[in-house]
């Protein structure tokens, strides 16, 4: 059962209201209607630019198509809206009581990287040096007295990630071996993707 439309002052989600009105009238793929029809079905849309906002949004989402027409009797311009296949699905969803909401329709990608982030600075250093290890990178990018060890671990992690994405290759020779330490892997730049560091594949989209 289609939920009842709200009064004028409460009608905020206009696109949703249009879909509900179309559902009530059993509209489906290929059915047409005009702006005047819509205003007759949902009088609340006559307030301000609500009708225009609603149809523009639905056309933008690909749920309706718009075609400019001409009324021979009155000599007025008369536009016609046609329900698309996606629009028919949205009308069915509205009929089932599912509101059409704005917002992202798919998972977000990776966040944009800051120019001053450690990863960005490390990538710039890799591009300048072509061959680098985590210890040397941390010693160049972090001041003595700051947490160089943490930066070293962070650099190692990023190097491994960039190796997996195919931008770096690990050299066979390890460096900075002291005592029982295995030292550090050296990485060689093999695929320069430009000034910004490589993005690791997003977990949500992978």
């Amino acid at each position, binding site marked *: 059962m289609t939920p009842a439309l709200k009064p004028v002052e409460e009608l905020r989600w206009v696109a949703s209201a249009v879909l509900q009105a179309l559902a009530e009238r059993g509209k489906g793929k290929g059915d047409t209607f005009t702006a005047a029809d819509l205003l007759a079905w949902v009088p609340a849309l006559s307030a301000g630019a609500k009708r225009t906002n609603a149809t523009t949004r639905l056309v933008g989402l690909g749920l309706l198509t718009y075609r400019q027409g001409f009324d021979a009797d009155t000599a007025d311009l008369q536009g016609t809206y046609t329900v698309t296949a996606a629009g028919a699905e949205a009308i069915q969803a509205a009929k089932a009581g599912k509101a059409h909401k704005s917002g992202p329709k798919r998972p977000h990608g990776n966040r944009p990287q800051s120019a001053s982030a450690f990863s960005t600075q490390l990538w710039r250093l890799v591009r*300048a040096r072509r061959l680098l290890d985590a*210890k040397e990178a941390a*010693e*160049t*990018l972090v001041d*003595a007295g700051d947490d160089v*060890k943490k930066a070293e671990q962070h650099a190692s992690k990023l190097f491994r990630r960039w190796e997996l994405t195919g931008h770096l290759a690990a050299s066979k020779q390890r460096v900075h071996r002291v005592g029982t330490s295995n030292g550090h892997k050296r990485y060689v730049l093999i695929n320069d*993707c*430009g*000034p910004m560091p490589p993005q690791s594949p997003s977990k949500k989209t992978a």
Partner: protein
Amino acid sequence: MKPGFVQTENFRRLKDAEKLVARRGASEAGLVIVRGVFGVGKSKLTERWAAESGYVFIRAKETYTKRALLDELADAMGLAKGGRNIEVQGRIIAKVGVDMVPIIVDEADHLVRSTASLLEVLRDITDVTGCMCFLVGMEHFPMKVARYGHIASRVAKVVEFETLSIGDIRATVNAKASLGSEPNAPALPMDEDVVAEIHKQCSGRMRLALNAIANIEGWAHANGWKKVTLADIKGKALCTEFSGKPLGVSANRVK
């Protein structure tokens, strides 16, 4: 020795020069020469500066041709390298003109040989865009550039990388000298006389100063010193010594 970068006076000088040149009067005078003797940390400072600032950084090579220079610049900016020289240069100019990101060229001595054609390539870019280009070279690099008046007139500033001051050596000792390489290793204090001795023996060069600190740390570890005084290191060579008979000189001429 504790790990990490030490911000010396040269590093501050470089940053000050950048601010000064950014306010220059003639926009076409966008070249900045950074010169210094070996071992003062030119390349390390430049790399840190480039990584921090995000400027376009390339290292000139002996094998450079005009095309190789343009290709490397295009690579560094993430541009396509296809087409003729003029097309690649056009792309570089367009990119620099939009982003206005300065260019840093390390080992810039390789840009001047019997002709200055490689420098001319860079001059074209800075002339058109009004962007800064930092040329990092050895101590005689400014003299090489001075041979070409039209390029020399576009040099906004020559930044001198001096040998380390005693203050720099003191800052380095305070930041790095320790009894171990771990970040929480206890610091190894040194007398002012020791700092002066390091400064004297390393001739103001960072590379040698770091070796000297490492040597002193080794002796302190072996002898259980908690603080280093001048008496502890008296008569010892702190840095690598190059002594003996000069090559090509007969024994009786060496006194």
